[in-house]
Protein backbone atom coordinates (compact mmCIF):
# COMPACT_ATOMS: atom_id res chain seq x y z
CA UNK A 1 0.00 0.00 0.00
CA UNK A 2 1.39 3.39 -1.01
CA UNK A 3 1.87 5.85 1.84
CA UNK A 4 0.44 8.59 -0.42
CA UNK A 5 -3.02 6.97 -0.61
CA UNK A 6 -5.35 8.53 1.94
CA UNK A 7 -7.17 6.29 4.36
CA UNK A 8 -10.87 6.92 4.34
CA UNK A 9 -12.83 6.08 7.39
CA UNK A 10 -16.43 4.97 6.94
CA UNK A 11 -17.15 5.42 10.66
CA UNK A 12 -16.34 9.12 10.80
CA UNK A 13 -18.31 9.55 7.54
CA UNK A 14 -21.33 7.94 9.19
CA UNK A 15 -20.96 10.15 12.27
CA UNK A 16 -21.00 13.32 10.14
CA UNK A 17 -24.06 12.09 8.26
CA UNK A 18 -25.76 11.57 11.63
CA UNK A 19 -24.84 15.08 12.81
CA UNK A 20 -26.32 16.86 9.79
CA UNK A 21 -29.31 14.50 9.54
CA UNK A 22 -30.14 15.21 13.19
CA UNK A 23 -30.00 18.97 12.52
CA UNK A 24 -32.51 18.42 9.70
CA UNK A 25 -34.83 16.51 12.02
CA UNK A 26 -34.50 19.14 14.77
CA UNK A 27 -35.33 21.98 12.36
CA UNK A 28 -38.36 20.20 10.89
CA UNK A 29 -39.67 19.12 14.29
CA UNK A 30 -39.36 22.62 15.76
CA UNK A 31 -41.14 24.14 12.76
CA UNK A 32 -44.01 21.69 13.02
CA UNK A 33 -44.21 22.20 16.81
CA UNK A 34 -44.58 25.94 16.24
CA UNK A 35 -47.71 25.28 14.13
CA UNK A 36 -48.90 22.24 16.08
CA UNK A 37 -52.33 23.71 16.79
CA UNK A 38 -53.09 22.99 13.11
CA UNK A 39 -53.02 19.27 13.94
CA UNK A 40 -56.11 19.61 16.11
CA UNK A 41 -59.55 18.55 14.89
CA UNK A 42 -60.25 22.18 14.00
CA UNK A 43 -56.87 22.80 12.38
CA UNK A 44 -55.63 22.86 8.81
CA UNK A 45 -54.12 19.37 9.19
CA UNK A 46 -57.00 17.78 11.02
CA UNK A 47 -56.61 14.01 11.09
CA UNK A 48 -60.41 13.73 10.76
CA UNK A 49 -60.00 15.15 7.25
CA UNK A 50 -56.68 13.59 6.27
CA UNK A 51 -57.82 10.10 7.25
CA UNK A 52 -60.77 10.19 4.85
CA UNK A 53 -58.72 11.33 1.87
CA UNK A 54 -58.67 7.78 0.56
CA UNK A 55 -54.93 7.38 0.94
CA UNK A 56 -55.17 5.67 4.32
CA UNK A 57 -55.60 1.89 4.09
CA UNK A 58 -58.50 0.30 5.95
CA UNK A 59 -57.55 -1.00 9.40
CA UNK A 60 -59.37 -2.92 12.10
CA UNK A 61 -61.53 -0.91 14.53
CA UNK A 62 -58.96 -1.18 17.35
CA UNK A 63 -56.09 -0.05 15.14
CA UNK A 64 -58.23 2.83 13.82
CA UNK A 65 -58.93 3.97 17.38
CA UNK A 66 -55.24 3.77 18.28
CA UNK A 67 -54.37 5.60 15.09
CA UNK A 68 -56.86 8.38 15.82
CA UNK A 69 -55.41 8.88 19.32
CA UNK A 70 -51.79 8.85 18.12
CA UNK A 71 -52.39 11.17 15.20
CA UNK A 72 -54.54 13.84 16.83
CA UNK A 73 -52.99 17.07 18.09
CA UNK A 74 -51.66 15.69 21.39
CA UNK A 75 -50.30 12.59 19.75
CA UNK A 76 -48.52 14.58 17.05
CA UNK A 77 -47.02 17.01 19.58
CA UNK A 78 -45.75 14.03 21.58
CA UNK A 79 -44.36 12.45 18.42
CA UNK A 80 -42.54 15.67 17.49
CA UNK A 81 -41.10 16.11 21.00
CA UNK A 82 -39.89 12.50 20.93
CA UNK A 83 -38.29 13.13 17.55
CA UNK A 84 -36.52 16.15 18.96
CA UNK A 85 -35.25 14.18 21.95
CA UNK A 86 -34.10 11.29 19.76
CA UNK A 87 -32.25 13.67 17.41
CA UNK A 88 -30.36 15.20 20.33
CA UNK A 89 -29.63 11.67 21.56
CA UNK A 90 -28.26 10.66 18.15
CA UNK A 91 -25.92 13.66 18.03
CA UNK A 92 -24.61 13.28 21.57
CA UNK A 93 -24.02 9.53 21.52
CA UNK A 94 -20.82 7.87 20.28
CA UNK A 95 -21.08 6.01 17.01
CA UNK A 96 -22.03 2.36 17.22
CA UNK A 97 -23.40 2.47 20.76
CA UNK A 98 -26.76 1.06 21.82
CA UNK A 99 -27.87 4.53 22.92
CA UNK A 100 -27.26 6.01 19.48
CA UNK A 101 -28.85 3.07 17.69
CA UNK A 102 -31.98 3.33 19.83
CA UNK A 103 -32.15 7.05 19.06
CA UNK A 104 -31.84 6.31 15.33
CA UNK A 105 -34.46 3.57 15.60
CA UNK A 106 -36.86 6.02 17.28
CA UNK A 107 -36.19 8.60 14.59
CA UNK A 108 -36.82 6.13 11.78
CA UNK A 109 -40.07 4.85 13.29
CA UNK A 110 -41.40 8.27 14.29
CA UNK A 111 -40.54 9.73 10.88
CA UNK A 112 -42.43 6.92 9.14
CA UNK A 113 -45.44 7.52 11.40
CA UNK A 114 -45.30 11.23 10.62
CA UNK A 115 -45.10 10.54 6.86
CA UNK A 116 -48.17 8.34 7.21
CA UNK A 117 -49.91 11.17 9.06
CA UNK A 118 -48.96 14.06 6.76
CA UNK A 119 -50.48 13.12 3.45
CA UNK A 120 -50.12 16.72 2.31
CA UNK A 121 -47.46 19.34 2.91
CA UNK A 122 -44.31 17.22 2.93
CA UNK A 123 -41.64 17.81 0.30
CA UNK A 124 -38.48 16.34 -1.22
CA UNK A 125 -36.37 17.44 1.74
CA UNK A 126 -38.56 15.42 4.09
CA UNK A 127 -38.25 12.41 1.82
CA UNK A 128 -34.46 12.67 1.73
CA UNK A 129 -34.31 13.07 5.52
CA UNK A 130 -36.49 9.98 6.01
CA UNK A 131 -34.45 7.97 3.54
CA UNK A 132 -31.19 8.89 5.28
CA UNK A 133 -32.73 8.19 8.68
CA UNK A 134 -34.00 4.73 7.79
CA UNK A 135 -30.66 3.84 6.22
CA UNK A 136 -28.76 4.96 9.32
CA UNK A 137 -31.07 2.92 11.52
CA UNK A 138 -30.38 -0.18 9.41
CA UNK A 139 -26.59 0.13 9.24
CA UNK A 140 -25.38 1.96 12.36
CA UNK A 141 -25.34 0.05 15.61
CA UNK A 142 -23.29 -2.04 18.03
CA UNK A 143 -24.07 -5.32 16.25
CA UNK A 144 -24.10 -4.35 12.57
CA UNK A 145 -21.05 -5.50 10.58
CA UNK A 146 -18.78 -2.74 9.30
CA UNK A 147 -19.36 -3.82 5.71
CA UNK A 148 -23.04 -3.02 6.20
CA UNK A 149 -22.09 0.52 7.25
CA UNK A 150 -20.14 0.81 4.00
CA UNK A 151 -23.22 -0.33 2.02
CA UNK A 152 -25.38 2.22 3.80
CA UNK A 153 -23.04 5.13 3.15
CA UNK A 154 -22.75 4.19 -0.51
CA UNK A 155 -26.55 3.91 -0.75
CA UNK A 156 -27.01 7.41 0.68
CA UNK A 157 -24.42 8.78 -1.75
CA UNK A 158 -26.04 7.07 -4.73
CA UNK A 159 -29.51 8.30 -3.77
CA UNK A 160 -28.14 11.84 -3.53
CA UNK A 161 -26.50 11.54 -6.96
CA UNK A 162 -29.74 10.15 -8.40
CA UNK A 163 -31.69 13.08 -6.97
CA UNK A 164 -29.50 15.67 -8.68
CA UNK A 165 -29.29 13.72 -11.94
CA UNK A 166 -33.04 13.11 -12.09
CA UNK A 167 -33.80 16.77 -11.37
CA UNK A 168 -31.26 17.88 -13.97
CA UNK A 169 -32.39 15.56 -16.75
CA UNK A 170 -36.05 16.46 -16.19
CA UNK A 171 -35.10 20.11 -16.59
CA UNK A 172 -32.85 19.45 -19.59
CA UNK A 173 -35.73 17.94 -21.60
CA UNK A 174 -38.19 20.66 -20.61
CA UNK A 175 -38.91 23.36 -23.22
CA UNK A 176 -39.47 25.94 -20.46
CA UNK A 177 -36.09 25.22 -18.89
CA UNK A 178 -34.40 25.08 -22.32
CA UNK A 179 -35.74 28.56 -23.09
CA UNK A 180 -33.93 29.94 -20.04
CA UNK A 181 -37.14 31.37 -18.59
CA UNK A 182 -37.83 28.83 -15.85
CA UNK A 183 -36.12 30.42 -12.84
CA UNK A 184 -37.60 33.82 -13.70
CA UNK A 185 -41.08 32.27 -13.81
CA UNK A 186 -40.62 30.42 -10.52
CA UNK A 187 -39.42 33.39 -8.47
CA UNK A 188 -41.94 35.80 -10.01
CA UNK A 189 -44.67 34.40 -7.76
CA UNK A 190 -45.43 34.58 -4.06
CA UNK A 191 -45.25 30.83 -3.44
CA UNK A 192 -41.53 30.42 -4.13
CA UNK A 193 -40.37 33.95 -4.82
CA UNK A 194 -41.01 37.60 -4.27
CA UNK A 195 -41.82 40.76 -6.23
CA UNK A 196 -38.24 41.90 -5.72
CA UNK A 197 -36.72 38.72 -7.13
CA UNK A 198 -39.22 38.66 -10.00
CA UNK A 199 -38.57 42.29 -10.91
CA UNK A 200 -34.81 41.78 -10.78
CA UNK A 201 -34.85 38.90 -13.24
CA UNK A 202 -37.35 40.62 -15.52
CA UNK A 203 -35.06 43.64 -15.77
CA UNK A 204 -32.02 41.40 -16.34
CA UNK A 205 -33.27 38.46 -18.43
CA UNK A 206 -29.69 37.47 -19.21
CA UNK A 207 -29.11 36.79 -15.52
CA UNK A 208 -32.30 34.72 -15.42
CA UNK A 209 -31.13 32.64 -18.39
CA UNK A 210 -27.69 32.17 -16.83
CA UNK A 211 -29.19 31.02 -13.52
CA UNK A 212 -31.63 28.70 -15.31
CA UNK A 213 -28.96 27.05 -17.41
CA UNK A 214 -26.53 27.07 -14.49
CA UNK A 215 -29.05 25.09 -12.45
CA UNK A 216 -29.49 22.52 -15.20
CA UNK A 217 -25.77 22.09 -15.82
CA UNK A 218 -24.97 21.87 -12.11
CA UNK A 219 -27.56 19.15 -11.49
CA UNK A 220 -26.70 17.09 -14.55
CA UNK A 221 -22.94 17.19 -13.97
CA UNK A 222 -22.99 16.80 -10.18
CA UNK A 223 -22.85 12.96 -10.10
CA UNK A 224 -20.09 12.92 -12.70
CA UNK A 225 -17.98 15.44 -10.77
CA UNK A 226 -18.09 13.25 -7.66
CA UNK A 227 -16.21 10.53 -9.54
CA UNK A 228 -13.64 12.81 -11.20
CA UNK A 229 -10.18 13.54 -9.74
CA UNK A 230 -9.77 16.19 -7.10
CA UNK A 231 -10.70 19.12 -7.02
CA UNK A 232 -13.83 18.29 -9.08
CA UNK A 233 -15.65 16.67 -6.12
CA UNK A 234 -14.84 19.65 -3.90
CA UNK A 235 -16.18 22.03 -6.56
CA UNK A 236 -19.36 19.94 -6.83
CA UNK A 237 -19.95 19.85 -3.07
CA UNK A 238 -19.24 23.54 -2.50
CA UNK A 239 -21.45 24.42 -5.49
CA UNK A 240 -24.17 22.22 -4.05
CA UNK A 241 -24.02 23.90 -0.68
CA UNK A 242 -24.21 27.34 -2.34
CA UNK A 243 -27.08 26.11 -4.53
CA UNK A 244 -29.18 25.01 -1.56
CA UNK A 245 -28.33 28.11 0.49
CA UNK A 246 -29.38 30.41 -2.34
CA UNK A 247 -32.63 28.47 -2.79
CA UNK A 248 -33.28 28.88 0.93
CA UNK A 249 -32.65 32.62 0.70
CA UNK A 250 -34.74 33.29 -2.43
CA UNK A 251 -37.45 30.64 -2.21
CA UNK A 252 -37.73 29.99 1.53
CA UNK A 253 -36.97 26.27 1.15
CA UNK A 254 -34.79 26.27 4.25
CA UNK A 255 -35.26 22.59 5.09
CA UNK A 256 -33.51 21.48 1.89
CA UNK A 257 -30.18 22.74 3.24
CA UNK A 258 -29.65 20.25 6.10
CA UNK A 259 -31.62 17.51 4.32
CA UNK A 260 -29.35 17.39 1.29
CA UNK A 261 -26.15 18.42 3.06
CA UNK A 262 -26.61 15.37 5.29
CA UNK A 263 -25.69 13.28 2.23
CA UNK A 264 -22.51 15.26 1.51
CA UNK A 265 -20.22 13.34 3.89
CA UNK A 266 -21.30 10.18 2.07
CA UNK A 267 -20.64 11.81 -1.31
CA UNK A 268 -17.20 12.94 -0.11
CA UNK A 269 -16.52 9.38 1.05
CA UNK A 270 -17.42 7.94 -2.37
CA UNK A 271 -15.35 10.57 -4.16
CA UNK A 272 -12.30 9.64 -2.10
CA UNK A 273 -12.91 5.93 -2.63
CA UNK A 274 -13.01 6.34 -6.39
CA UNK A 275 -9.93 8.54 -6.32
CA UNK A 276 -7.59 5.95 -4.94
CA UNK A 277 -8.42 6.18 -1.26
CA UNK A 278 -7.83 3.11 0.88
CA UNK A 279 -10.94 1.99 2.67
CA UNK A 280 -10.51 1.62 6.40
CA UNK A 281 -13.16 -0.66 7.81
CA UNK A 282 -12.72 -0.62 11.61
CA UNK A 283 -12.29 -3.98 13.29
Amino acid at each position, binding site marked *: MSTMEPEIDVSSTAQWVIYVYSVSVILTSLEYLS*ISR*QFSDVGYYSWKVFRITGQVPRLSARLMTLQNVLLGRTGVRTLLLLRLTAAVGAITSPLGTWRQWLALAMLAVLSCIFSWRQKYGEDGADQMTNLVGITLFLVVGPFQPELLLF*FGICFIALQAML*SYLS*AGVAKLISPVWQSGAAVGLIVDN*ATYGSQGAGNFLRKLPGVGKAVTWGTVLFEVTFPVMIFLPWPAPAIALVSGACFHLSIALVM*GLNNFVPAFLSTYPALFFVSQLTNGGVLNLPG
Partner: protein
Amino acid sequence: MNAATLAFGILFTTWLALTVVVQFHYERINFFRRFDVLNLLPTWTFFAPNPGSTDYHIIFRNRFESGEVTAWRDALPIPKQNAICAVWNPQKRHVKVVGDAVSSILEAYATARSKGQSKESIESALIFFGPYLVILNLVLQSAGHPPKTVSLQFAIVERTSFGREAPPRPILLSQFHRIR
Protein backbone atom coordinates in the same frame (compact mmCIF):
# COMPACT_ATOMS: atom_id res chain seq x y z
CA MET B 1 -19.91 -11.31 4.11
CA ASN B 2 -22.64 -12.90 6.22
CA ALA B 3 -26.19 -13.61 5.10
CA ALA B 4 -27.66 -10.56 6.88
CA THR B 5 -25.21 -8.17 5.23
CA LEU B 6 -25.93 -9.76 1.85
CA ALA B 7 -29.67 -9.39 2.46
CA PHE B 8 -29.28 -5.70 3.30
CA GLY B 9 -27.10 -5.24 0.24
CA ILE B 10 -29.90 -6.68 -1.89
CA LEU B 11 -32.43 -4.46 -0.09
CA PHE B 12 -30.45 -1.28 -0.81
CA THR B 13 -29.90 -2.30 -4.44
CA THR B 14 -33.61 -3.00 -4.90
CA TRP B 15 -34.60 0.24 -3.17
CA LEU B 16 -32.25 2.23 -5.40
CA ALA B 17 -33.48 0.44 -8.54
CA LEU B 18 -37.12 1.13 -7.66
CA THR B 19 -36.26 4.79 -7.01
CA VAL B 20 -34.71 4.97 -10.48
CA VAL B 21 -37.86 3.43 -11.98
CA VAL B 22 -40.27 5.90 -10.37
CA GLN B 23 -38.37 8.84 -11.84
CA PHE B 24 -40.12 7.92 -15.08
CA HIS B 25 -43.75 8.98 -14.75
CA TYR B 26 -45.29 6.05 -16.63
CA GLU B 27 -48.59 4.72 -15.30
CA ARG B 28 -47.74 1.05 -15.87
CA ILE B 29 -44.34 1.25 -14.26
CA ASN B 30 -45.60 3.22 -11.29
CA PHE B 31 -48.58 1.03 -10.37
CA PHE B 32 -46.75 -0.12 -7.24
CA ARG B 33 -46.55 3.47 -5.96
CA ARG B 34 -49.99 3.03 -4.43
CA PHE B 35 -48.26 0.74 -1.88
CA ASP B 36 -45.70 3.41 -1.02
CA VAL B 37 -47.70 4.78 1.93
CA LEU B 38 -44.54 5.96 3.70
CA ASN B 39 -43.15 7.90 0.69
CA LEU B 40 -39.95 5.85 0.55
CA LEU B 41 -39.81 6.06 -3.27
CA PRO B 42 -39.24 9.77 -3.86
CA THR B 43 -39.57 11.47 -7.22
CA TRP B 44 -36.63 13.80 -7.46
CA THR B 45 -37.83 15.81 -10.48
CA PHE B 46 -38.13 19.11 -8.62
CA PHE B 47 -39.79 21.93 -10.60
CA ALA B 48 -39.48 19.90 -13.77
CA PRO B 49 -40.44 19.38 -16.47
CA ASN B 50 -43.01 22.07 -15.60
CA PRO B 51 -41.63 24.68 -13.20
CA GLY B 52 -44.11 25.78 -10.54
CA SER B 53 -44.88 29.25 -11.80
CA THR B 54 -48.35 29.81 -10.42
CA ASP B 55 -49.82 30.95 -7.15
CA TYR B 56 -53.02 29.26 -6.01
CA HIS B 57 -55.28 31.36 -3.83
CA ILE B 58 -58.23 29.97 -1.93
CA ILE B 59 -60.92 32.64 -1.60
CA PHE B 60 -64.28 32.29 0.06
CA ARG B 61 -67.47 34.14 0.82
CA ASN B 62 -70.16 33.65 3.44
CA ARG B 63 -73.93 33.56 3.03
CA PHE B 64 -76.29 34.56 5.79
CA GLU B 65 -79.81 33.29 6.54
CA SER B 66 -81.18 36.45 4.91
CA GLY B 67 -79.54 35.44 1.65
CA GLU B 68 -76.97 38.19 1.84
CA VAL B 69 -73.55 37.16 0.55
CA THR B 70 -70.29 38.75 1.69
CA ALA B 71 -67.43 39.84 -0.53
CA TRP B 72 -64.72 37.35 -1.49
CA ARG B 73 -61.80 37.08 0.94
CA ASP B 74 -58.52 35.20 0.92
CA ALA B 75 -58.69 32.17 3.23
CA LEU B 76 -54.96 31.62 3.48
CA PRO B 77 -52.87 34.56 2.22
CA ILE B 78 -49.50 33.41 0.94
CA PRO B 79 -46.88 34.75 3.40
CA LYS B 80 -44.21 37.06 2.01
CA GLN B 81 -40.68 35.71 1.71
CA ASN B 82 -38.08 37.47 3.83
CA ALA B 83 -34.56 36.76 5.07
CA ILE B 84 -35.86 34.91 8.14
CA CYS B 85 -37.50 32.34 5.85
CA ALA B 86 -34.05 31.17 4.80
CA VAL B 87 -33.63 29.80 8.31
CA TRP B 88 -37.11 29.50 9.82
CA ASN B 89 -40.18 29.02 7.67
CA PRO B 90 -42.94 26.87 9.18
CA GLN B 91 -45.58 28.73 7.10
CA LYS B 92 -44.31 27.07 3.94
CA ARG B 93 -46.16 23.92 5.05
CA HIS B 94 -49.57 25.62 4.72
CA VAL B 95 -48.71 26.79 1.21
CA LYS B 96 -47.49 23.30 0.28
CA VAL B 97 -50.70 21.70 1.54
CA VAL B 98 -52.73 24.03 -0.67
CA GLY B 99 -50.45 23.37 -3.63
CA ASP B 100 -50.60 19.59 -3.18
CA ALA B 101 -54.38 19.54 -2.79
CA VAL B 102 -55.00 21.86 -5.75
CA SER B 103 -52.62 19.88 -7.97
CA SER B 104 -54.46 16.66 -7.08
CA ILE B 105 -57.83 18.26 -7.86
CA LEU B 106 -56.62 19.59 -11.21
CA GLU B 107 -55.06 16.24 -12.13
CA ALA B 108 -58.24 14.35 -11.25
CA TYR B 109 -60.34 16.89 -13.15
CA ALA B 110 -58.15 16.59 -16.26
CA THR B 111 -58.21 12.79 -16.11
CA ALA B 112 -62.00 12.72 -15.77
CA ARG B 113 -62.44 15.16 -18.67
CA SER B 114 -60.11 13.10 -20.86
CA LYS B 115 -62.35 10.09 -20.18
CA GLY B 116 -65.36 12.04 -21.43
CA GLN B 117 -67.05 12.99 -18.17
CA SER B 118 -69.05 16.22 -18.20
CA LYS B 119 -67.98 19.27 -16.25
CA GLU B 120 -71.15 19.10 -14.14
CA SER B 121 -70.73 15.44 -13.17
CA ILE B 122 -67.09 16.01 -12.26
CA GLU B 123 -67.90 19.01 -10.10
CA SER B 124 -70.67 17.16 -8.26
CA ALA B 125 -68.32 14.21 -7.64
CA LEU B 126 -65.53 16.46 -6.38
CA ILE B 127 -67.18 16.99 -3.00
CA PHE B 128 -66.32 13.37 -2.20
CA PHE B 129 -62.71 13.78 -3.27
CA GLY B 130 -60.09 13.91 -0.51
CA PRO B 131 -58.10 16.94 -1.67
CA TYR B 132 -61.33 18.90 -2.12
CA LEU B 133 -62.21 18.16 1.51
CA VAL B 134 -58.73 19.32 2.56
CA ILE B 135 -59.35 22.67 0.84
CA LEU B 136 -62.86 22.93 2.32
CA ASN B 137 -61.43 22.24 5.77
CA LEU B 138 -58.79 24.94 5.27
CA VAL B 139 -61.54 27.42 4.43
CA LEU B 140 -63.66 26.35 7.42
CA GLN B 141 -60.74 26.73 9.82
CA SER B 142 -59.53 30.04 8.44
CA ALA B 143 -60.34 33.06 10.53
CA GLY B 144 -63.16 35.48 9.92
CA HIS B 145 -66.49 33.70 9.52
CA PRO B 146 -69.22 36.04 10.79
CA PRO B 147 -71.53 34.47 13.40
CA LYS B 148 -74.55 34.91 11.06
CA THR B 149 -72.97 32.59 8.44
CA VAL B 150 -75.12 29.60 7.42
CA SER B 151 -73.15 28.49 4.39
CA LEU B 152 -69.98 29.31 2.54
CA GLN B 153 -68.55 28.96 -0.92
CA PHE B 154 -64.93 28.85 -1.97
CA ALA B 155 -63.03 29.26 -5.19
CA ILE B 156 -59.55 28.31 -6.30
CA VAL B 157 -57.93 31.15 -8.17
CA GLU B 158 -54.75 30.92 -10.19
CA ARG B 159 -52.41 33.90 -10.45
CA THR B 160 -49.09 34.29 -12.23
CA SER B 161 -46.48 37.04 -11.95
CA PHE B 162 -48.39 38.70 -9.11
CA GLY B 163 -51.23 39.44 -11.53
CA ARG B 164 -49.09 41.91 -13.45
CA GLU B 165 -49.62 40.53 -16.95
CA ALA B 166 -53.02 38.90 -16.59
CA PRO B 167 -55.76 39.05 -13.97
CA PRO B 168 -56.17 36.12 -11.58
CA ARG B 169 -58.18 33.28 -13.13
CA PRO B 170 -60.74 31.22 -11.22
CA ILE B 171 -60.26 27.53 -11.92
CA LEU B 172 -62.81 26.01 -9.56
CA LEU B 173 -65.95 27.33 -7.92
CA SER B 174 -67.50 25.23 -5.20
CA GLN B 175 -71.17 24.99 -4.37
CA PHE B 176 -72.39 26.64 -1.17
CA HIS B 177 -71.64 24.33 1.75
CA ARG B 178 -73.97 24.58 4.71
CA ILE B 179 -72.13 24.94 7.99
CA ARG B 180 -75.03 25.67 10.32
